[in-house]
């Protein structure tokens, strides 16, 4: 009896020429097996010729739409991959410039608390570290002795330290309304979240903790006046400090 799987392999032309010839010889002596091969060939022929041919235009169009979507997403990914550094750069510049613009244009609330806190802990011997500090201290002393009435505004010996790596001096002050602090930073320090005073745009106003704060610049220095009082009162005090005008 011939192996039925060999008969199928013969019909499917899956045998080597040698095997096929040997099997064909064997089939001459086995009519039943030969008929089986014919039947297999007939079935193959019938299936090949008569099975339905499916064609679905909509399904193919659906495929094309998906391929289009893939191409599109690849194009986007390619663009992003190629220009990611440029996009990041633009975004960075946008954020930095936006932040810079916001700082200089707006600023309703002061964030001077950090400065006050940093500087508040500073307590050093009374000696000026920079010429600007020495001059400022001399000016203040001169002002107190001259134009200022020491009963109206007292200036106490300063403490020296650094604010954002800039030399700074902290002058405790007192008048009838209470204590004040004048901070002098030897350098132009840009303050965040402050707004120019309407009557004097060179002076900016903000809030630090419970205190209001005025900030102005003079000859490469930053001056900050803190006090638990209104901006008008602070402005009046600032007007009496040399360099505030």
């Amino acid at each position, binding site marked *: 009896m011939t192996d039925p799987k060999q008969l199928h392999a013969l019909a499917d032309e899956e045998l080597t020429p040698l095997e096929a010839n040997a099997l064909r010889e064997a089939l001459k002596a086995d009519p039943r097996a030969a008929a089986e091969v014919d039947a297999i060939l007939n079935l193959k022929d019938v299936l090949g010729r008569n099975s339905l041919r499916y064609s679905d235009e909509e*399904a193919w169009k659906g495929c094309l739409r998906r391929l289009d979507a*893939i191409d599109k997403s690849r194009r986007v990914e390619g663009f992003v991959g190629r220009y990611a550094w440029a996009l990041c750069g633009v975004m960075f510049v946008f954020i930095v410039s936006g932040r810079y613009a916001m700082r200089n244009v707006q600023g309703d609330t002061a964030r001077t608390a950090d400065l006050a806190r940093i500087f508040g802990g500073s307590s050093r011997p009374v000696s000026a570290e920079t010429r600007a500090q020495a001059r400022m201290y001399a000016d203040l002393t001169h002002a107190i002795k001259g134009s200022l009435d020491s009963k109206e505004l007292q200036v106490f010996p300063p403490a020296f330290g650094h604010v954002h790596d800039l030399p700074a001096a902290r002058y405790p002050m007192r008048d009838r309304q209470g204590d004040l602090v004048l901070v002098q930073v030897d350098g132009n320090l840009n303050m965040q979240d402050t707004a120019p005073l309407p009557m004097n745009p060179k002076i900016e106003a903000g809030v630090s903790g419970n205190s209001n704060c005025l900030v102005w610049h003079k000859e490469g220095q930053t001056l900050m006046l803190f006090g638990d009082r209104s901006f008008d009162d602070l402005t009046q005090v600032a007007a009496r400090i040399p360099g505030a005008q």
Partner: protein
Amino acid sequence: MLFGKRDKRDAFERQAERVFPSVYGTALRLTRSREEAEDLAQEAIVRAYDAFDRFDGTNFKAWILRIVTNLYINKYRARQRGPQLGSLDDEGAIEPVSSETELPDRLLFDPALGAEIEEALNAVPLDFRMAVILSDIEGMSYQEIADAVDVPIGTVRSRLARGRAMMRKALEGYARREGYLKEGSTE
């Protein structure tokens, strides 16, 4: 293969469109559901497009039908409706069903048989049906079928022999009903 993006798309589309009837037909014969067949065919086309760079350029139809069957086996088979006769022994006895006295099989069939063939195919358990579809309808070699369904060639031979035997029985019933085969004729 090296393609420009547009060239790649064009080359793929040309080949895929040519074999799409086979892709869709195979998907339909496997899933027996038009909706699932559409999903399967589209998924296969998308997978093939993604992997087109890895196509060795020999037989696109066999390559994409392999994707169809793999996808079907991995994804759709679990949801397949109808009984699965997975316990049938692939290596079980295969007896010839012809005899010298039988009417030639060719007489059993005519060109209007398409629907009957599909119906007969549907009655064949999946593994055997897959072998018959890939071999006799799509013309794939044993090795290509073995690669597509991930079984040894020996298993392909067994499944093919069993599947064809089932097909012939199923179509014989039709022939008897239609009077092509007289009562009393034996296999």
